[in-house]
């Protein structure tokens, strides 16, 4: 019996033990980049038993087997995992959109997202590396509301970036935002390896950017490079991909048969004769004996698939006192144009921070980028467009040709040789780019955790070494280059910035605030020297030096330089009352040597109200956070050149009796210029809903550029002068929605959407009704109430179908025939100007600014797989099809197939395009919406599928953590425009490098 009782108690005890048994659970919490996450709270569900992870993300905890562990961390999705029989639980936390407690970089400091009153979009490293591109900014296309990225297909070329429209008159490289790389100012970041960037923050509104004063008017993009972490084990990683680029949406040109039809219908006996010449020379097609037996698709001939690859090795880590990141990267990209056209870049970098004492931290950051670029001959795109299809690439009968027998259109009677291959084969444009960014700082903790002083010196050094070689050839008497010419240009840019910043932050009860005051000294120097040599021994590249040239024309020797200084004082106040009321103000005084007016002052103020913290909001379900923001600020744009601000004298050469003499010309057209002033008001909402699963950010802004410097054409001369004579307004609405959810441990997903509208409008031209831009033949006009540089011309009603239609149209010109365009007479009957088409009938035909841009992304993670897709597009912009427009200078060359097929050639055949003969008439060549086309497009930006290998073994060996990635960049673009590519930065399509689709396979390994 005692035994029985004992047994009973024992069993009871065991049962109790089983129920109450505490087991030790340990593990590591990492983020999706594999880094350990410190500070994650782990709680046994329904109890107060819990812990937080250490600096490396490790934890251990005693819990009961039946319990469930809740992992939570601000900014990440909360996860619940049952303990069961596990003793180790390693988890990867998925980010819940941008966390409100996340610290992001702002100018000269950092701020917590929830303290922001302005509009800042931050893109993280893992988003950036999705795009297989040498250009980090390319990865932002379609991802940031209000940011327009116009890609460039040419290897090594940076995309065009516009933040919230365009406030400065374009065309002078003054639309680009300011890039601040670890505190140093840049015009572009083409030298950076995307994988070295930790985050890119776009400061969209004036309030965020105003701390950069006179440089900030086009928006500011802050780039932070990756650092190591204190007390972090060394991590060695490799990231790389290789792939191929394929031209997309290649424009279909008229083939030999279509071209022959057009020539025969043109009414030009000369052009019909050229077709006969081609048939005589190359024979008649067996299918259609009236068509030459040649059918060259020139685009097909000059395009090629091109390779792209990228390899990075990085080591990061740190001890208690030091942290480091050291890495190297090699990127190589061929161009899709069949010539020496490629880009290679080799980067080295090292970033070290060292806590020398408890009050002094010092650090150094060095990036060295060494690139070799072979630029394309842009002219070849144009030549391939216009080259007639009735000519072969090679013509063996051209026996006089040298070094290779390329065909010559002049042999058929055309004025030019047309064949693009001499351009491709006998030119080489080499550019060696070396960039060095050195950045050192010392930070003193004067009052620990409260008052600190940081002094930073940055130096950006760029050396450009350019060598353009034009080799001789002979295709025909009128299609030859007798001399080998060599142009060398060397330049270096040395920019220095020295910043001193004092920061104080403190908290008194519910009042917390940060006060920052600083000053900055800037010194920018540029120096360039170039020379030309003619007739050098060109067979060996080793002889490609000016010294070897027979002739060095003195007019080919150029030397120029630039030196500008800037001194700035700035300050910031950021105040937070009880996490409910926010106040933000900055002020910058900028002194510049560039203009007669030396000093400018750029203030901003912003307020925020966290409504969700108010008591009356407590019971609203689903709403986690709601903040109303409003701000106002002023910015400057000092990219306006200074040279027009003074009357200048230029040296010109001429000859008297065969002797060269120098004289001078003096330009008397000048005005005193100053920087442009941009003023912006932004109101917005930041919200988090449904347990932080949904984030919604909404902004509305009005951005006015005052003193906009605009080129005013000088009457009766070829020149124009820049004057501060405009007010340009950009306004728009931006919406960013992100939804992230985790269905189970194995399956999570996120969906994002961003939309933005843009209205660009000229508000004032200081009394002038309009300012003309563009070319006389393809007029662009900036008028009050219309977008900047709107396309301006006649509206096409259709095509005259028959003589009676012409007879009944009072506005038809004398000599009109069926097949001519019919323009809209803007005057009503009885008004002056009715019954005749003249310049008063010109109207705005469109603008090159998209009025609506959107991006959409989806990410799915399932077990070891993850997939993401990005889509983007734009609407409302127009493109001037200048390739078609070229016919006004040279008729008789090739055209796109759409035009050839859909031309008017008899009643009812087309109401859109003129007849072949009509295309050559001045009447139909007026600037009209025949030339201006819809530039909308939709694109699948990026598709990526990745497989992650974690904790896998092959026999006894641990496989390092790896990731295999398949990427398709821009696999599909849909648009209506009759061109290669709807991405034309300035809306005028003469020749754009096609943007290729890129398909890559990538691998990441971490040791």
């Amino acid at each position, binding site marked *: 019996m005692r035994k029985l009782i004992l047994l009973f108690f024992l069993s009871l005890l065991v049962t109790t033990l089983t129920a109450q048994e505490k087991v030790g659970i340990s593990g590591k919490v990492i983020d999706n980049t594999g880094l350990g996450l410190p500070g994650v709270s782990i709680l046994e569900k329904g109890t107060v038993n819990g812990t937080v992870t250490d600096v490396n993300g490790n934890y251990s905890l005693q819990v009961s087997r039946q319990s469930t562990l809740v992992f939570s961390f601000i900014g990440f999705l909360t996860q619940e995992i049952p303990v069961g029989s596990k003793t180790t639980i390693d988890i990867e936390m998925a980010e819940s959109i941008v966390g409100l407690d996340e610290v992001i970089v702002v100018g000269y400091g950092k701020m917590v997202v929830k303290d922001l009153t302005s509009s800042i979009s931050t893109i993280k490293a893992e988003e950036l590396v999705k795009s297989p591109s040498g250009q980090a900014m390319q990865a932002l296309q379609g991802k940031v509301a209000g940011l327009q990225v116009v890609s460039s297909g040419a290897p090594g070329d940076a995309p065009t970036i516009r933040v919230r429209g365009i406030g400065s008159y374009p065309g002078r490289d003054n639309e680009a935002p300011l890039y601040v790389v670890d505190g140093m100012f840049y015009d572009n970041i083409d030298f950076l390896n995307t994988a070295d960037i930790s985050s890119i923050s776009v400061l969209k509104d004036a309030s965020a950017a105003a701390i950069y004063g006179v440089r900030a008017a086009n928006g500011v993009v802050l780039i932070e490079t990756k650092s190591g972490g204190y007390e972090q084990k060394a991590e060695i990683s490799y990231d790389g991909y290789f792939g191929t680029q394929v031209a997309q949406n290649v424009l279909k040109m008229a083939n030999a048969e279509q071209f022959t039809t057009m020539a025969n219908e043109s009414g030009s006996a000369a052009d019909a004769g*050229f077709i006969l010449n081609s048939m005589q020379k190359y024979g008649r097609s067996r299918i259609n004996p009236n068509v030459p037996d040649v059918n060259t698709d020139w685009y097909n001939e000059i395009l090629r698939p091109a390779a792209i690859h990228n390899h990075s090795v990085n080591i990061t880590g740190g001890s208690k006192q030091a942290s480091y990141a050291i890495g190297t990267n090699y990127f190589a990209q061929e161009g899709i144009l069949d010539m020496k056209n490629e880009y290679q870049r080799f980067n080295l970098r090292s970033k070290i921070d060292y806590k020398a004492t408890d*009050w002094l931290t010092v650090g150094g950051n060095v990036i060295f980028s060494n690139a070799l670029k072979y630029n394309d001959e842009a002219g070849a795109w144009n030549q391939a467009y216009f080259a007639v299809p009735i000519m072969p690439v090679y013509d063996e009968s051209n026996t006089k040709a040298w070094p290779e027998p390329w065909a010559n259109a002049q042999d058929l*009677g055309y004025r030019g040789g047309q064949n693009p291959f001499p351009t491709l084969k006998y030119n080489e444009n080499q550019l060696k780019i070396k960039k060095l960014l050195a950045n050192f700082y010392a930070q003193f903790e004067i009052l620990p955790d409260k008052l600190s002083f940081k002094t930073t010196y940055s130096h950006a050094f760029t050396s450009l070494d350019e060598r353009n070689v034009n080799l001789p050839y002979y295709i025909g008497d009128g299609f030859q280059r007798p001399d080998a010419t060599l142009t060398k240009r060397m330049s270096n840019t040395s920019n220095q910035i020295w910043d001193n910043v004092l920061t104080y932050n403190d908290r008194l009860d519910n009042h917390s605030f940060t006060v920052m005051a600083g000053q900055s000294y800037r010194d920018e120097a540029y120096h360039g020297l170039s020379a030309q040599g003619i007739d050098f021994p060109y067979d060996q590249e080793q002889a490609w030096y000016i010294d070897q040239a027979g002739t060095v024309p003195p*007019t080919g020797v150029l030397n*120029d330089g630039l030196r500008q*200084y800037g001194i700035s004082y700035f300050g910031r106040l950021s105040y937070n009352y009880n996490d409910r009321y926010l106040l933000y103000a900055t002020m910058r005084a900028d002194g510049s040597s560039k203009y007669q007016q030396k000093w400018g002052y750029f203030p901003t103020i912003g307020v925020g109200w966290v409504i969700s913290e108010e008591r009356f909001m407590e019971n609203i379900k689903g709403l986690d956070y709601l903040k109303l923001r409003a701000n106002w600020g002023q910015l400057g744009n000092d990219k306006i050149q200074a040279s027009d601000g003074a009357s200048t004298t230029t040296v010109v050469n001429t000859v008297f009796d065969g002797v060269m003499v120098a*004289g001078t*010309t003096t330009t*008397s057209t000048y005005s005193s210029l100053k920087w442009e002033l941009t003023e912006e008001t932004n109101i917005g909402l930041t919200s988090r809903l449904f347990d932080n699963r949904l984030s919604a950010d909404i902004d509305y802004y009005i951005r006015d550029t005052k003193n906009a410097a605009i080129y005013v054409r000088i009457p009766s001369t070829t020149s124009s002068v820049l004057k501060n004579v405009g007010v340009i307004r950009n306004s728009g609405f931006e919406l960013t929605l992100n939804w992230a959810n985790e269905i189970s441990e194995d399956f999570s997903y996120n969906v994002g959407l961003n939309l933005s509208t843009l209205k660009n409008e000229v508000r004032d031209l200081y009394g002038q009704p309009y300012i003309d831009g563009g070319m006389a033949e393809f007029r662009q006009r900036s008028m009050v109430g219309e977008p900047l540089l709107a396309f301006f011309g006649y509206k096409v009603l259709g095509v005259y179908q028959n003589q009676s239609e012409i007879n009944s149209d009072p506005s038809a010109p004398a000599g009109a025939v069926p097949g001519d365009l019919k323009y809209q007479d803007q005057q009503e009957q009885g008004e002056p100007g009715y019954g005749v088409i003249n310049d008063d009938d010109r109207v705005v035909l469109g603008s090159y600014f998209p009025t609506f841009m959107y991006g959409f992304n989806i990410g799915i993670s399932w077990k070891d797989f993850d997939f993401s897709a990005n889509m983007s597009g734009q609407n409302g912009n127009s493109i001037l099809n200048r390739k078609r427009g070229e016919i006004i200078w040279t008729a008789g060359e090739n055209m796109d197939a759409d035009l050839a097929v859909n031309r008017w050639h008899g009643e009812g055949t087309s109401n859109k395009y003129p007849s072949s003969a009509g295309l050559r008439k001045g009447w139909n*060549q007026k600037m009209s919406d025949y030339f201006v086309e819809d530039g909308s497009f939709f694109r699948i930006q990026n598709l990526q599928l990745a497989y992650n290998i974690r904790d896998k073994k092959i026999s006894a060996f641990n496989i390092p953590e790896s990731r295999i990635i398949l990427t398709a960049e821009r696999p599909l673009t849909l648009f209506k425009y009759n061109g290669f590519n709807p991405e034309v930065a300035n809306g005028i399509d003469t020749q754009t490098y096609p943007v290729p689709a890129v398909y890559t396979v990538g691998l990441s390994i971490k040791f």
Partner: protein
Amino acid sequence: MKRINYIVKITFAVVALLAVTACHDLLDEPAENRAFTEETDYSNSGNMILPLIGAYAEFYSRGWEDFPLIAVRGDDVNAGGQGDQQDYAETDKFNYNKDYWMYNSVWQNLYLDIFFCHSAIEQVELYRAAGGNSAKADQYIAEAKTLRAFMLLNLSRAWGSILIPSGSDPSVLLVTQLSTKDEVMKHISDQMDEAIPFLPDMNPNQRTDIKGGVTKHTALAIKAMANLELKNYAAVAQATSQIISSGKFTLEPNFYELFKIKGKLNSENLLELQYSDLGQGSGTNFSYLYAFFGSENWTPKVTGAGSGWGFFEPSMKYIKFMLDRGETVRLETSVLFTNRGITEIKKDAKYASLPAWVSNTTRSGDRINDYARAMFASGKHYLPSDQLTPGRTDYGTNKNLTCIRYAEVLLMHAEALTQGASGTGMTADQAVNAVRNRAGLQALTGVTNAQVMDEKFAELAMEWGIRYYDMIRLGKYNELSYDGRTFSENKSFLPYPQTQIDLLPVLKGNN
């Protein structure tokens, strides 16, 4: 210790802050690599000639389209613009398109250089004020005025009423009223009267400072041209008489070579645009784009010499007119024949047999092959391939472009006299016969005005539209209605370019 530490930190911060503040005066540094006009040392009077040389440089560097548009409308020449530059061909047929780029470009090119002349005048005045040689300043200013006058003359002949700038700042045009063609010609004549006393009295090729530059006789010739437009024949004769009486000009005996290398700074020239390849086979080259005028297809004597574009075609009317007159050297010099062109002439039974010298090979040995755009090319714009500097291949490189030559002065003189004016130096018969003699034609006696005009047609075809502007001035519109064209008086002037109408409201409504 802690206190010292604190002081060190504060001191460092303060020193750093002050160091930046010390850089303030750098903000006043002027820009690099720029010669500011206000920094020009005007007291260095040796440089006073530089602005004038600059004005010549701008005058010589003519846009290639200037000459064709100024010259294409006469019955001496056709556009040849088939298949290309349609509106240039339409202009030749008197169908004008104010939006056509060439109109605006020529307008701008001429005006821009007028402003450069003004600017040169203003700069020379600044040198004079700083102590420069006053007589030299007067001469330089007079030269710039003469160049300016030639451009104003061409502007007004092409467009009729124009704006006369009064200074180097183009914005003055915004407040300038239109001047009628007569007012412009009067202005030119007055300007030349102002300039003449200060200009050197010599042949341009006798000048040593600016060889080939403007002289008194250049200004006199421009004065004569302006007065011809005004039909002020007395003033014409008075100006031409002075040139003739000076004895400083002679006709080049070899008419063919006058338009080749030999014609450079020839004693016959009063004004020419100077170009040179500096005698080098490569490298710097100052040149006019003669390719525009050249045959599109040729077999040059010197292999590798580049051909042209074929846009300036002597008219069939002119060729037949010359054949009728029994012209030889002038026709041979003015027209390059193709076989297709020769066949086309022969289709007219009247010209079934042509003189033996009519051939598609020039006397210099270049063969002109058939090409689609035109049947003939301009010989006065042709430089034989064997006259190119070895190494150069561009059509016409190293050839000058003559603006005014003595033969035109002689014929203006004869024209004025046959219109009733009186002059000295030569009679109308003497003047015409001097020109005819060089052309290998028999002398005339009792020359009539009609004969003078025919002589001008024969002698000056393809040169600066002289023929067209003569016909306009004399109202001989039926001459311009040739080869299917219909001319009427309202077609006399080009419409103002749309770009300029957009910029200068005063032009609006005056087209």
